[in-house]
């Protein structure tokens, strides 16, 4: 079964950069869409962006365009979400998700990465 394993908890200061990862296994990494979702403390889920690892075709939801960068390294079956300058409002849990292109739902989720940004 598809498995997504995310990198660990991060504690950063405002203005610092950060790159978190999502490693896929037990499936063809280049043949599933990978999306990133934010969940702020006590809040709902928000779409951030989606990437096709096969050719790195990437789409961003409007609220996150220019705020984050999504990338993938298909040689190591890993997708990334990165910030160049974190803000306190980036404090959240971030999930990566995988979608079979034949479907319109996301049945595979990573365990989540907690990012805390505080001075």
């Amino acid at each position, binding site marked *: 079964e598809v498995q997504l394993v995310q990198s660990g908890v991060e504690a950063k200061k405002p203005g610092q950069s950060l790159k978190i990862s999502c490693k896929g296994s037990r499936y063809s990494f280049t043949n599933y869409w990978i*999306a990133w*979702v934010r969940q702020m403390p006590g*809040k*709902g*889920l*928000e*779409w951030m962006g*989606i990437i096709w690892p096969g050719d790195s075709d990437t*789409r961003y*939801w*409007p609220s996150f365009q220019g705020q984050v960068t999504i990338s993938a390294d298909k040689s190591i079956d890993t997708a990334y979400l990165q910030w160049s300058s974190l803000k306190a409002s980036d404090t959240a849990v971030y*999930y990566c998700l995988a979608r079979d292109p034949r*479907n*319109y*739902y*996301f*049945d595979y*989720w*990573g*365990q*989540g990465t907690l990012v805390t940004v505080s001075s």
Partner: protein
Amino acid sequence: QSALTQPRSVSGSPGQSVTISCTGTSSDIGGYNYVSWYQQHPGKAPKLMISDVNKRPSGVPDRFSGSKSGNTASLTISGLQAEDEADYHCCSFAGSYTLYVFGTGTKVTVL
């Protein structure tokens, strides 16, 4: 694109049925039969419970069912059990430009 509207909370006693609504527009829920529902226990990643409006993935109990009418989708939990206490999020495909939109989330409490 605004989030889909869900009630903040619903509750029921064990054995009862509860229904969670998810209201969107003709550009998302009303335009496609691609509504999915996710269950999330505290501190855990969401889990797919319903896909394509009313399809249950393997392993999901049949007390979970989904439906849609117009711009509103619904998730019904029949025979409520203690382990069903969680947050539930709806999601709809919204076309090739917007792609997907989540609901605001609903907390289900088992009394």
